[in-house]
């Protein structure tokens, strides 16, 4: 098939740890990354807390996922975005975001890209299907 890759977006709007949605949602992303699809991930609303650096779930006794998010780029999930207004209204800045991998050539850390809502809305409009977690 000479068809273009289908665009599949994941929106992450739930806060982490209070429920399993973010954790199990991540499992879907990792599986889907192995398939022939054009994947993007957008963190918005309370979902921005999922990409806050320094999370430690040890005392909860819950398996965390910060390490996996740190390897998103290794899974070839590189289109990772954070909604600016969601982030700022929750008292976070770009500095608070965790690293999702490093640049192959420069070894510079890669962080999610902070974008405005109209950009995200435009991306949403281009998707074949969107999964919300």
């Amino acid at each position, binding site marked *: 098939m000479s068809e273009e890759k289908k665009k599949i977006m994941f929106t992450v709007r739930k806060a982490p740890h209070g429920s399993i949605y973010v954790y199990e949602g991540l499992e879907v992303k990792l599986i889907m990354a192995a398939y022939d699809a054009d994947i993007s991930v957008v963190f918005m609303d309370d979902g921005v807390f999922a990409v806050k650096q320094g999370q430690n779930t040890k005392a909860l006794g819950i398996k965390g996922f910060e390490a996996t998010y740190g390897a998103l780029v290794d899974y070839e999930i590189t289109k990772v975005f954070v909604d600016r207004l969601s982030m700022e209204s929750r008292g976070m800045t770009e500095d608070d975001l965790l690293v999702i991998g490093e640049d192959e050539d420069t070894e510079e850390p890669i962080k999610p890209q902070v974008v405005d*809502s109209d950009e995200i809305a435009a991306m949403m409009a281009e998707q074949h299907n969107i999964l919300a977690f």
Partner: protein
Amino acid sequence: MLHTVNKSPFQNTSLESCIRFTRPGDVILLIEDGVLAAQAGTSKSAMLEEVLAKNEIYALQADLQARALTDLVPGIKVTDYEGFVELVEKHATHAWL
């Protein structure tokens, strides 16, 4: 794009977020507890009226009936499950869970 919202606007900001990401031509469908937003004369009515000036808003009839909501913000269209399917035929969907 079809945006489905299933949360009460009195307890959750899903509808507000949805509106922020709604573009011209997009449609919002209120389902489940989301239909609570459709009531006329609430603290959220003005927000819906503003959206209705630019976008269509539908509310699922079965959910309205179950919640005894009859007096709706003018302009909100009532639809059934088949109408829901028709909207899905026309648009890719995003669920604002």
